């Protein structure tokens, strides 16, 4: 947060660099079941983010000592492709991706009926093919769809969005420049019906009032995003072409 920059992120009328209003989302598109092998899968485009999620399971947890006798263990693995970011990233997990994998696993566990599958594990592989700010929330939002598409029982869908502070103003769904040069980043994910919060992180500088404003913006936005999730799960026809990106 807060690297300095000469870029002007908001114009006089409060419009953003990419032409959005403060409360406007970037375009979002979700498709399901593009992958053949996985038990369920989802593909999301959210702004410039391109993320594929595959789900395997429930299957017996391995190694055995990781089994929980009361419920399934959800193991999300958030991974960035080497070419997904501006400078080539060495393959394999880094500290950031380990942390993100942890909070996503916990968030999904809130929504999946894990108690129905003792000793099992549910693997959720989140592959960021192109990163453009907000990948953890986009990945988690797609992961929820992928889990549903695998037929795994859930008490609710998980849906999220970020808000942040840019030049002193609270805005929704940070772009890459806003993420790099803004003053705060607040990703929140909720259960879509109950609005219970299953993921929240923040870094930057927010007053209480700013937090209230930002969190309300996110809550409103999740309704729209949940609608996109539902559509993706009900209409699966033109998947191939869209998913392949033209």
């Amino acid at each position: 947060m807060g690297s300095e920059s000469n870029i002007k992120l908001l114009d006089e009328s409060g419009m953003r660099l990419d032409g959005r209003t403060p409360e406007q989302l970037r375009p979002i598109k979700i498709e399901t079941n593009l992958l053949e092998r996985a038990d369920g899968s989802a593909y999301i485009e959210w702004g410039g983010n391109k993320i594929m999620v595959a789900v395997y399971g429930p299957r017996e947890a391995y190694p055995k000592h990781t089994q929980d006798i009361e419920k399934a263990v959800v193991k999300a693995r958030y991974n960035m492709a080497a070419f997904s970011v501006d400078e080539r990233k060495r393959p394999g997990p880094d500290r950031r991706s380990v942390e993100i994998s942890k909070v996503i696993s916990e968030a999904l566990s809130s929504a999946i009926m894990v108690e129905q599958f003792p000793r099992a594990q549910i693997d959720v592989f989140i592959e960021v093919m192109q990163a453009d700010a907000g990948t953890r929330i986009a990945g988690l939002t797609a992961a929820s769809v992928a889990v549903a598409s695998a037929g795994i029982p859930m008490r609710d869908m998980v849906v999220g969005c970020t808000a942040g502070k840019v030049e002193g103003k609270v805005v929704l769904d940070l772009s890459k420049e806003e993420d790099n040069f803004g003053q705060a980043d607040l990703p929140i994910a909720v259960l879509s019906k109950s609005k219970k919060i299953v993921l929240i992180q923040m870094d930057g500088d927010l007053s209480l009032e700013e937090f209230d404003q930002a969190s309300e913006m996110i809550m409103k936005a999740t309704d729209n995003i949940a609608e996109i999730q539902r559509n993706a799960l009900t209409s699966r026809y033109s998947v191939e072409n869209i998913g392949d990106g033209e």
Partner: protein
Amino acid sequence: MPRDALGVLSEIKRSFITKQLKEGKRGDGRGLLDFREATITTNYVPRAAGSAMVKLGRTRVLAGVKIESGEPFPDTPNSGVLTTNVELLPMAFPTFEAGPPNETSIEIARVVDRGIRESKMIDTQKLVIEPGKKVWIVFVDINIMDFDGNLIDACTLAAVSALRSAFIPASKEGGKDMPLPVDQIPVSVTMVKIGDELVCDPDLEEEQLGSARVTVTTTEDGHIRAMQKGDTGNFTLEEIKKAIKISSDTGATLRKKYFS
């Protein structure tokens, strides 16, 4: 946090603690929002640039700061470097194992780091020796030595205390040794939700009982600098707002008590 570390709490104990909490009572007599007493010994390791041994109840962590000259990151040529590492020493708990950082120690380190970084506690622009070429690198290493819950707050306390006591060895680069310039004091406050109650500074049993955890780090102005939700439970937005308020109030108390 190693929820299963101690095995499952007995059902009897679990319902007893929960019942007590509903009445506002905790096992050690604290109120729901009370922190355990902290003992902070700065300069515990005189050979380090700064250090602090912190006991928070029966949790014990040792933070040491080393400050060395080195190259800046290419994308921030005019800025020193701050790096935070947490080691869950196997001495701290029966099931902790030696090895590289795992998801638990990485999460703690990153939450502590964000609190310090985003509060602008250290002005990294003052850590430049030669612009673009040589800067001070501040290593904060935190060793968990004894574990009874709430590592994030214990580690933040230790890291902040160690940094406040730290000297830059500028004489090695032809200057004069000087205290590390620190500004804002971030304080993190971690709560767990047990039943419908928010409980501050949980010990290990309370962590095991909690359905969800949230950490809020604030500065003196009451602003939020870092937040982190953990565990598989959830919070309502109202609960989060309440947690922010608690953190801001408790943070002020702790700041006064330990950092004034």
